[in-house]
């Protein structure tokens, strides 16, 4: 699955990206983590506050850092 992490590069966004990568490693599946820091791209996706995370194009979290466990739960569906 495609995990997109939205954030301009502040500490919170970096933490979220790290958590996403940890979750992918734990899941053992084939998932891709992409960091999106371009504002125009964020806006096009309907992101209102950062950090935000989308799974296969669907926004799942925004405005807070989700833990690796939360992201893992999302990957397992």
């Amino acid at each position: 699955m495609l995990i997109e992490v939205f954030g301009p590069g502040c500490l919170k966004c970096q933490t979220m990206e790290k958590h996403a990568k940890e979750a992918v490693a734990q899941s053992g599946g084939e998932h891709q983590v992409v960091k999106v820091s371009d504002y125009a791209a964020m806006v096009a996706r309907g992101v209102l506050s950062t950090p935000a995370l989308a799974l296969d194009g669907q926004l799942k979290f925004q405005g807070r850092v989700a833990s690796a466990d939360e992201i893992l739960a999302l990957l397992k569906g």
Partner: protein
Amino acid sequence: MSEPVRPGFIQRGGWLLLALPLWVFLYAVNHSASEWLAFHLLGLTPKSHLGEAVAFLFYDTPKVLLLLTLVVFIVTFIQTFVNPTRVRDALSKRRPGLGNALASLFGIVTPFCSCSAVPLFIGFLRAGVPLGVTFSFLVAAPMINEVALGMLFAMFGWKIAALYAGTGLAIAFTSGLILGQLKMERYLEGWVQDALKGPALGELEEETPTLSARIELAVQGVKEIVGKVWPYILAGIAVGAFIHGYVPESLMAGLLGKNHWYSVPLAVLIGVPLYSNAAGVMPIVEALLGKGAALGSTLAFMMAVIGLSLPETIILSKVMRPRLIATFVSVVALGILLVGYLFNAIL
């Protein structure tokens, strides 16, 4: 498979009831403990420059950290009830006036990090929130910092906290109203204007968290914020301790007293480039007031540090052309100056 174990009382937040008496105890003994450390253990002389500076350091560090922990916990808990999507919907299509007032109020409580400023700004505009109303929100959100408000209340009482919130609201309300009247939409960057014409996209369905989830989020908030700001607090306390021990009252009254026309602009000029956060300036504010700086000048200083920060301006310059940025900064700076003069004159 065994049955899922129901989380115990302690896991569900019961430990908070145990943590509270500990907090109260630490807070109560802090003053005596700091004096004992400075004057008995280290053998410094009370009333000496060094003695007073060190005692301030030992007293203020635990005090500010304890208060910050409590304030951040309460504030983050309250914030789990507010989210930007709901605020945006409440502000959408509002007329100037009421819209500006609501936006300023929401600006206080909405969880907001300056790196969110750009997507939020565009998201608001796209949902039909008028530019002026959006500005009221963008001014209020950083200027009336919810943690600063809680800290002011805890350290200096409700009057100063109310003054801070009231004047911040007035600035956010008025500057948004003025910026809205100036019809500056065309000074948004080109890609923003394009984005505004684009179709509105799918929304995130946000679930309502349970009480224990809210407590968990508040605990996370404490870890995150206290873990991040303690260096600023230590720096602020060091500056505060220096002012407390070494800066003579006559100098402070001369620079930031109420009798000089230049004290308020000076306070703002010192404040803007200082990048700190709400918690970090508190010890400085404490020391300034203790040394006889006027309340108006001190409030102006604090608002300039928290509300008009260089990093945020740089972030906003990605969506606004220089003319709009300049207008935004000047209107806010003017508001802060007015507040400073007003309180120096009437108090």
